[in-house]
């Protein structure tokens, strides 16, 4: 193997690997010095040094988990790496990047989060399929294509959304002018007359940052765990199931469909 700089590919050893930074666009190096990191199962590709990987349920980790891990029911997908050395993380050759939070909060699609420092607390978001990180520290996330940061107010395509930081109002937005009335309803349901596929967006207003990936291919969703079966909890059982739960629908009443067609 050639050792001359500039000729041939770059080789890395523990001295030249970066500490808590990207090796290339698809690989991230984490340095552990007797510290711990939470990571999603199976995202470690190689490490130097001595490390131990334990499931969240490991007894010694009880205190750590109590302070920085708050979605008990999907704990099976996470492990804690501890020890010292340098560890490489990667996820199916997707782009990976690290982000720093300083007394902040960030909500991210569950499948995109790879690893985080225990100084952050991980919680399930009220929005199904999303996780929220709170506190100060670093985390690593994957995305399909590089991530871009946008300032609200902004409307984004649902498939391009990776997450948001500090934004108070993630909500749905429909282009009502185009989608209401008899013709609009027909267009929406059948696509006849030209549905652009962009009539529905997520809208963010308020101070904060929105993270978008530069493609509309979603990453597989990781289960975030079930939420308590309680009224008022989205996705959490009776009372939480959208419009059907109100007054019983009378025969002949079309409900949403009727409203959509403007009848």
């Amino acid at each position: 193997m050639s050792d001359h700089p500039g000729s041939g590919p770059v080789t890395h050893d523990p001295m030249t690997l970066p500490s808590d930074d990207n090796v290339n666009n698809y690989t991230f190096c984490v340095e552990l010095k007797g510290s711990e990191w939470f990571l999603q199962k199976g995202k470690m590709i190689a490490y130097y040094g001595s490390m131990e990987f334990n499931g969240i349920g490991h007894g010694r980790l009880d205190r750590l988990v109590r302070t920085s891990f708050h979605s008990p029911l999907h704990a099976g997908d996470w492990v804690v790496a501890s020890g010292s050395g340098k560890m490489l993380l990667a996820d199916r050759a997707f782009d990976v990047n690290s982000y720093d939070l300083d007394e902040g909060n960030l909500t991210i699609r569950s499948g995109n989060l790879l690893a985080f420092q225990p100084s952050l607390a991980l919680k399930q978001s009220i929005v199904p399929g999303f996780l929220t990180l709170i506190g100060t520290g670093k985390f690593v996330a994957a995305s399909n294509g590089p991530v871009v940061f946008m300032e609200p107010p902004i409307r984004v395509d649902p498939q391009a959304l990776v997450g948001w930081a500090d934004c108070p109002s993630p909500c749905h937005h429909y282009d009502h002018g185009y989608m209401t009335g008899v013709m609009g309803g027909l267009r929406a349901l059948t696509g006849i007359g030209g549905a652009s596929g962009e009539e529905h967006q997520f809208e963010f207003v308020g101070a904060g940052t929105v993270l978008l990936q530069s493609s509309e291919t979603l990453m597989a969703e990781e289960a975030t765990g079930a939420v308590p079966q309680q009224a008022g909890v989205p996705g959490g059982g009776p009372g939480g199931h959208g419009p059907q739960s109100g007054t019983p629908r009378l025969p002949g009443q079309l409900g949403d469909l009727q409203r959509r067609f403007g009848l």
Partner: protein
Amino acid sequence: MAAAFGGYLRCVAMFRLQGSKVLAVDMTGDAVKAKNGSMVAYDGQMAFKKMSGGGEGIRGMVTRRLTGEQMTLMEVKGHGTCWFADRASEINLVNLQGDKLFVESSNLLATDAGLRTGTSFTGLRGASQGNGLFTTTIEGHGQAAIMSDGPAVILRVSSQYPLTVDPGAYIAHQGNLRQSFQSGVTFRTFMGEGGGEAFQIRFEGDGLVYVQPSERNTIAGEV
């Protein structure tokens, strides 16, 4: 054209990358072995010949059939430039100077015809990778091109820095390395509380290990 890249009078095929997913080989009457069907374009005069059993003769053919390390190679010979690519995989060039490269046959794209190929037993590592118990070896002086899912990271192993690798991310290694298989399977694994990295390969000695930023689906990923 080939002379400009090949330099001097040595008649050796010159490998170069065009972007990260296309391999261009400049040839002046010499030959390369490449994965069957991986040619995407050529310029000049080329002859393509299928090499049964990787061109290792009857014995090699039988060994490969028995070990499950089959690879269908072709020999490309001629004057000009030939371009190779396979399913938009990232391509990594390896320069061999008398040392031995161990690579999975599925990750091998092309080698200089002057390099010897063979099979070797990998033991438990192969089993944990889902790639069988055997691997392909390449030996001699010249260049080889290996494929990875995402650009490979090359990690140096030396006596004071042993390396541990996830079997699903391992693609190749070269040099004088000993590998041992580590299993983290404990009773916790059976209770669904495994560490997620139950099988690991530890490399010790002196050499280079190639890992890809992606994991094949292995049994290890599930426990």
